[in-house]
């Protein structure tokens, strides 16, 4: 089921949907599977599977360490897709690939979209791929029914938000504060800045995710 209709379906029964995150192969794929079981029991709606990368420059210390340990343990892109396949067959939530553009670039954008689709993924989040560089990948994704998840941020101007909104599909990822993932998570001033982003975004996207 495509991402947008899946979310609409889920939204019928609850007010708030939950997305969770796992770094593939950290601490192990077995542990990842157990984590997903717990998430499924708790009613999680979406899970990001992060494909580890050696230079995760948008991630904070916890995630950097997880990426590093996973690669040290020998995790490959093939392992990640296989895991995604198993998870997508087994659990009711939907799966997104999260990672860095070089992983996609090295296998080729066409191959990436095909493999993601085959593994049951419904979309991807590539934080270091700006929309200026995304035209081909977005086209291939649209043909395959895969959603590119666009990030909107507290520093995005109204003009930029409009630009981002124009190419957004599935859901929009609203970055609620400046900084990297997983650090300094508190509901400070930065988060309230997301209100502005949200209000100007909400008219364009049906679904927004807040990244705290």
């Amino acid at each position, binding site marked *: 089921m495509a991402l947008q209709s899946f979310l609409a379906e889920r939204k019928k029964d609850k007010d708030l949907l939950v997305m969770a995150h796992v770094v593939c192969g950290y601490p192990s794929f077995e542990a990842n599977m157990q984590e997903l079981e717990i998430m499924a029991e708790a009613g999680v709606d979406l899970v990001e599977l992060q494909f*580890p*990368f*050696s*230079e*995760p*420059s*948008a991630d*904070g*210390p916890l995630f*950097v*360490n997880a990426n*590093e340990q996973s*690669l040290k343990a020998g995790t*490959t*892109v093939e392992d990640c897709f296989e895991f995604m396949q198993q998870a997508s067959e087994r659990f009711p939530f939907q799966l997104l690939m999260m990672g*860095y*553009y*070089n*992983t996609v*670039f*090295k*296998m080729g954008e066409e191959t990436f979209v095909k493999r993601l689709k085959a593994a049951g993924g419904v979309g991807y989040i590539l*934080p*270091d*791929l*700006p929309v*200026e*560089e995304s035209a081909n990948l977005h086209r291939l994704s649209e043909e395959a029914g895969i959603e590119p998840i*666009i*990030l*909107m*941020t*507290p*520093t*995005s*101007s109204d003009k*930029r938000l409009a630009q*981002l909104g124009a190419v957004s599909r599935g859901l929009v990822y609203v*970055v609620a504060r*400046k*900084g*990297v993932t997983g650090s300094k998570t508190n509901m400070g001033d930065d988060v309230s800045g997301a209100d502005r982003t949200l209000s100007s975004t909400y008219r364009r996207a049906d679904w927004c995710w807040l990244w705290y």
Partner: protein
Amino acid sequence: MDIFDFSDGREGYYGEYGGVFLPEILHATIEELLVCFRECKADPKFWQDYVALMQSYSGRPTPVTHLENLSRKLGGAQIYVKREDLNHTGSHKVNNVMGQGLLCQRLGKRKVIAETGAGQHGFATATMAARFGFDCKIYMGAVDVARQRPNVFWMENLGAEVVAVQDGQKTLKDAINEAMRDWVTNMADTHYILGTACGPHPFPEMVSWFQSIIGFEAREQMLAQTGRLPDRVYACVGGGSNAMGIFQAFFDDDNVELIGSEAGGQGVGSYMHAARLAYDDATVGVAQGFKTYFLQNEEGNMNETHSVAAGLDYIGVNPIFAHLHDKGKVRFEAATDIEVKEALRLTMRTEGLIPALESTHAFVTAIKEAPTMGKDEIILINQSGRGDKDIFTIADALDDAKWKTFINGKADQYRAENN
């Protein structure tokens, strides 16, 4: 040719290389930087102020020295050296840093961050920050902090905070990642002083622009001193900023051959090197904000690199060189660690010059090729930095027994003082 004229292509691209691959949150910051840089570049007064600052603060113009002894000994081309080692802080790094300092004033930002490998760029940045009154934080891999104490010592004494980065290989690329993480959080009041002609646009162009002062001076000096242009120009290439600095002035001189010398480390096939273009191990990828040749595996994860010269020990090369390599405009060779040690000894003994280990890579290639050239031919080498401040590293590289005895004695003395 003007490689920075993007009117026929995509802004920030050199052939298929370059671009901006950054998290969305930095989009506005990079735009702001680009606008400010364009204003500076279009303003003749900005360049005049920059040159005046470099003259009064860093001893520019640096001279060109004829190495008569070395030329005679090798029996071929006449060798000349552009003396970037005579800059304040001991290398060409200060050119870029002072330029970005002036630009930072225009941006109205009061905090600067920088990555550093060997510590030269961090040292230069800390110096500039002290002079301009900026808060300064330097990110440096923990491995580099451990092996480059003298530079860390100076950075800290100049008032900078040095952060030892514990991620990844704990070297330059990891320091860049960490600086990026700082920037995505603090971009409102912080400018990132990237140290080489790599990273997202406009950094390759901006760093190259500030470093172009090297080549403009050198070209004039060669004409004045030898009456003509050199036949070949050599420079070492890590990220590529000193090489871009000297090569640019000769881009329109078709008879001047440009040769970049990369870190061959333990040699071809060793996978312990940082030769992205001279060897066949690197492939095109996207990391650290831009597209270029990286030393990486088939899945796009970066490989370990190695060089005796920490300043050349980097996974990627600037996108301009990736393009000029494709076009055959710049030839790339590699110098191994062993060759570097030999060339350093030779240069010290014959000329009394102590090039930095990085710069010695350029000497290696020039020394190899000079004997094959005619006596009326001319070579110009960019001596990007001086080696005497790297005494710990060079003493290690040369495995100097008396130095080790001295250090042991010093250690004994400190231990005795603590007891």
